[in-house]
């Protein structure tokens, strides 16, 4: 199939339809609204379910009910809306239901703004809802990759009866980019053996997140953990650019990763051995691969559009074996390739300097200088 020019949110929505999504429940919020608008038109055309809910709270609980039927269902929202959904997300996790939640992240906390951000890393990657559970978290960096990640998200959700979060930001949601749509997948004909459908000719089924006796909940938490360990062992995904011989290895995801790739190419063109490691699954986090990267590189630079959330995960994996530096832009500001290139050059000139004692603190000092210059 030929490439077509799509707006990010609309491309994601069409991809969800082609991946067999039979139910979409959402609430308008910038910068994810076009997803809902697209679904409002397309889902009824195909005889599939679409409801504009009264709130994100209701939307995710509609997803919860719909997921109980074993069909492919999802919602899409943006940061403040995702916060409202966290109750339902926890219940879905506790009931072990598959569903896909897309967060087109924006600046925060609070109402923040509508510009692209990666500030929901902790919320999306670590869980965000109450209780002991582990979501899968995917972080595509282009419209095409996001499109492809949606079918993958549904497959993973079903395989592990898990929530799959897809983290994109306002850049990806709003930008237009050529992409190739996957073919339309046939819909699932028979529900899975755990779904509710009416107890015709079988024992009744109950889907619940209640385990009122603590030992039962303990067994459930353990089951979720073991499933998670299986996911960690087999579902790690990442992308690499020039990391084989990189002396300076950038680790960045999503839009930050994409911007970093431009800076890496620019540095390479000038003979600087820079590389990029881009986690595609933020959960499970590519721990082994980053640990291996640390062994062959001289310095690591983590770049994010937040105050260094993934930095914590990278630091934990690296265990001080190689110096780590950090660069981030905040509050809905997307870094330019030049800024990351400047960071590469700065590090390249001091490649053998002692490791920064506190990479975040040193970045704050540098950023404040940059902000003075920008204003």
């Amino acid at each position, binding site marked *: 199939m030929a490439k077509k020019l799509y707006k990010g949110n609309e491309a994601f929505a069409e991809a969800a339809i082609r991946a067999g999504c039979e139910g979409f429940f959402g609430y308008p919020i910038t910068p994810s609204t076009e997803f809902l608008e697209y679904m409002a038109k397309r889902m009824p055309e195909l005889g599939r379910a679409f409801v504009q809910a009264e709130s994100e709270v209701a939307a995710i609980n*509609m997803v919860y009910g719909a997921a109980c039927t074993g069909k492919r269902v999802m919602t899409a929202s943006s940061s403040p809306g995702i916060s409202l959904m966290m109750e339902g997300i926890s219940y879905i996790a506790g009931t072990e239901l598959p569903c896909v939640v897309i967060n087109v992240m924006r600046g925060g906390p609070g109402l923040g703004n509508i510009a692209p951000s990666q500030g929901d890393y902790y919320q999306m990657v670590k869980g965000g809802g109450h209780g002991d559970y582990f979501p899968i978290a995917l972080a595509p960096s282009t419209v095409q990759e996001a499109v492809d990640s949606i079918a993958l998200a549904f497959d993973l959700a079903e395989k592990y009866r898990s929530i799959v979060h897809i983290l994109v930001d306002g850049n990806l949601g709003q930008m237009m980019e050529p992409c190739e749509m996957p073919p339309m997948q046939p819909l699932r004909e028979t529900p899975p053996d755990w779904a509710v459908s009416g107890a015709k000719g079988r024992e009744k089924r109950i889907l619940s997140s209640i385990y009122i006796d603590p030992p039962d909940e303990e067994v459930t938490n353990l089951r979720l953990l073991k499933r998670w360990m299986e996911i960690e062992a087999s579902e790690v995904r990442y992308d690499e650019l020039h990391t084989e011989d990189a002396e300076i290895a950038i680790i960045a995801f999503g839009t930050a990763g994409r911007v970093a790739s431009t800076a890496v190419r620019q540095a390479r063109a000038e003979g600087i051995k820079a590389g990029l490691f881009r986690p595609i699954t933020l959960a499970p986090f590519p721990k082994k691969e980053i640990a291996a990267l640390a062994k062959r590189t001289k310095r690591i630079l983590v770049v994010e559009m937040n105050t260094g959330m993934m930095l914590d995960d990278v630091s934990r994996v690296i265990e001080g074996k190689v110096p780590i530096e950090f660069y981030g832009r905040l509050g809905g500001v997307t870094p330019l390739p030049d800024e990351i290139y400047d960071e590469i050059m700065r590090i390249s000139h001091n490649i053998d300097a002692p490791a920064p004692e506190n990479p975040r603190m040193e970045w704050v000092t540098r950023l404040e200088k940059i902000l003075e210059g920008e204003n």
Partner: protein
Amino acid sequence: MAIAEPKIVYQRPTSLATRVTHYCPGCTHGVAHRLIAEVLDEMELREKTIGVAPVGCSVFAYNYFDHDYVEAAHGRAPAMATGIKRMLPKNTVYTYQGDGDLASIGMAEIMHAAARGENITVVFINNAIYGMTGGQMAPTTLPGMVTTSSPGGRDIESMGYPVRMAEILSTLDGAGYVVRRSLHDPNNIRKAKKAIRLAFETQERGLGFSLVELLSSCPTNWKLSPVDALQFIEDKMIPMFPLGDYKVNPEIGKLRV
């Protein structure tokens, strides 16, 4: 003289599971459960019914029914039921909710399910108190009524007035059948059963949102004997929450069951 063959005139409905109750003595949840089960049997809906349990005393409602059930978050049962019904429009979907669940934390979800004309049935248990958490003030608590969170009695100056859900919901165009009944005596229980039947008939005919509000007793948290609690419904609750038909689709009005 030959003894006539024994005839069964009363037995446990198939839709009701064999399960020892966890409800308090004198609580009317058991009566409400049974009425729903009888209706599902009579209409032969058991095999396609999916119930949505609330959070509250009836959080374990799914244990008492022998059909598919899911368990919602507090107040969200109408949203969850919406999700199920939209995916499985041929199935019968109902929620079972108390007053704290439906009229407090779940006010938005119930209002909008009704406004959308969502083809689901809601059985709303109004006992004017939070039972599960031990007797706190509910949105339906009567003025002056003593609860653990209105220890001096519900003071309307600072705590406001009870909410009459059946009346409010009946104003919405999406509602097909909205009535209030009571479970305090056999006559009213029979009327309640008929209302539940008509609510499910509304759903089966695709006539929109249906809700039966049932005035119910909570002897434990009202600190009354079971008999006095039933009297309390008649003397105190019915004057505040008048029984009646608030919205009946004409097609259902003509129905004889």
